[in-house]
């Protein structure tokens, strides 16, 4: 059993210690936020926050997580209570197929925590590790900017 701290909750998971976090999240915890895209750290579909930093969960064996705080898309907000980032992406309809978007939102969340009012250039540089094949990039960047505005107009988030 490995103990995982996911979105503030401690879970015991049955997966072997070398299992990448991505599979533990999706299989042991039935969380859909992190997606499989490449499994080798090239696309960002699986992005989660590890101690607040965006990482590719497909490359994180659960043995290294070891109590460190993991935040997934589910930890940002829910359908009933979407986070500013989620609200912004929904408001701007920043998705085509939507498969890459969870990873984009989680990575964007890390940026906004560090830099509440990023420039477009900073957003682009920060999102560089994540790929989108539908060409939704322009809306994604706009949504991150919108999220920055929304974050400012809401109470500070505790994620």
């Amino acid at each position, binding site marked *: 059993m490995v103990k995982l701290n996911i979105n503030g909750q401690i879970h015991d998971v049955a997966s*072997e*210690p*070398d*299992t*990448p976090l991505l599979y533990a999240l999706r299989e042991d915890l039935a969380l859909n936020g992190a997606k499989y895209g490449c*499994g*080798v*750290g*090239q696309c960002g579909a699986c992005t989660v926050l*590890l*101690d607040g*930093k*965006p*990482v*590719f969960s497909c*490359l*994180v*064996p*659960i*043995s*290294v997580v070891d109590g460190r705080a993991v935040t997934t898309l589910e930890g940002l907000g829910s359908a009933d209570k979407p986070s500013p980032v989620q609200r912004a992406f929904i408001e701007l309809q920043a998705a085509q197929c939507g498969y890459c978007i969870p990873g984009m939102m989680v990575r964007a969340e890390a940026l906004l925590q560090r830099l509440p009012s990023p420039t477009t250039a900073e957003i682009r540089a920060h999102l560089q590790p994540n790929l989108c094949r539908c060409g939704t990039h322009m809306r994604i960047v706009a949504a991150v900017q919108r999220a920055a505005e929304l974050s400012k107009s809401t109470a500070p988030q505790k994620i």
Partner: protein
Amino acid sequence: MRLTVRLIALLVIIAAAYVVWAWRSPMQGVAAPAKSTFDVAQLRHGSELAAIGNCVQCHTAPQGKPYAGGRAVPTPFGIVWGPNITPDPDTGIGLYSKQAFLRAMRDGVDRQGRHLYPAFPYDHMVKASANDIEAVWAFMITREPVRQINQTTRLAFPLDQRILLAGWKAMFFNRQAFTPDPGHDAAWNRGAYLVEGLAHCGACHTPRNIFGAETKSAAYAGGQVEGWTAPALNSSSPAAVPWTTARIETYLRLGRDDLHGAAAGPMNEVTHALAGVVAADVAAIATYVADIAGNATPERAAVAAKAVASSRSGAAPVSASDPGSAVYAGACAQCHGDAARAPTNPAVNLALSSAVRAADETNFVNVVHGGIRQPDGLGGPYMPGFADILTPAQVRDLASHVRNTYAGKPDWTGVADAWRRQSAIK
């Protein structure tokens, strides 16, 4: 008293003599000739040579305009800034006549007469023929001028006194031209000419003494550059499988070779530059470098054979007593494979990796920390960085597992500290 005065007088005279000796006159600024006055063949030739010399690397800022300068080149003496070498008359080399350019390349003296720091490898450029340097000048002087003010290199006193560089040159700067060795064929000689000259491989791969000069007696025994280890190219190379001409050529053109690894750090950029160079010149470089590496000794060959053979049987299963084994199985094996697993798109087998076999942990730590990436739109070796994934203790465990299991060598001692240093830079 008198003696003191005499001594001082003597020193002053010596100093004055030194200054006179060391002094270089400014050269007249000359407007850049129009591009149309050059022969296209000469420009193309210059372009090739500039690529072999990889001038763009030190003379371009990150995301900056090519050749417009602004790259920080860290040296043990401080940061040297690569200057603007586009033909902008004010901020670049737009006023350099052919002679002024020649002097800079071969004497390490700029147009104004200032001695240049040897971070600019004029000790190699001097080996290039006048004809070739002229072609490089023709190429550079016909680029689009970019107005970009240079960052001033400020080394600590007394190194900021450029006049002292004349003394350095007197001690370490061998102005001897390249002479072909009739004992070797044309390809070898072409390679030697390029490697010793414009390609300046020794600038990184030869160790430097405390004065920052290459230790010629230990040529190609490996050096340190920009926080990386430039591995030895000679017989002390850490490669498990001795390099051959063909392998070096592949590596230089594609940035990777299955039996050795991928180009990382500053070498990655070198391979980008060489990717566009005519095949024959890269092959010539490979011929000469393979000769530097020498034939495999029986011992080396045995090690190589063992490494290749062990490539599929190296990994220990995941075990609690070897905490790095789970890290490896979950984070690395999906590309690098292990005893029982053949990945769908295999990366280099770590039993063969020079970084894993190296005497120090520098390159291993750097690569695992920051990964390997290529510029947008360019294919080539890729590795994700694990900076935010692994803690210093976890990377030490991983290094231990990889080093013992794949290289059959003892642990490095400085992994965790090196990791922390990398994280601090970031």
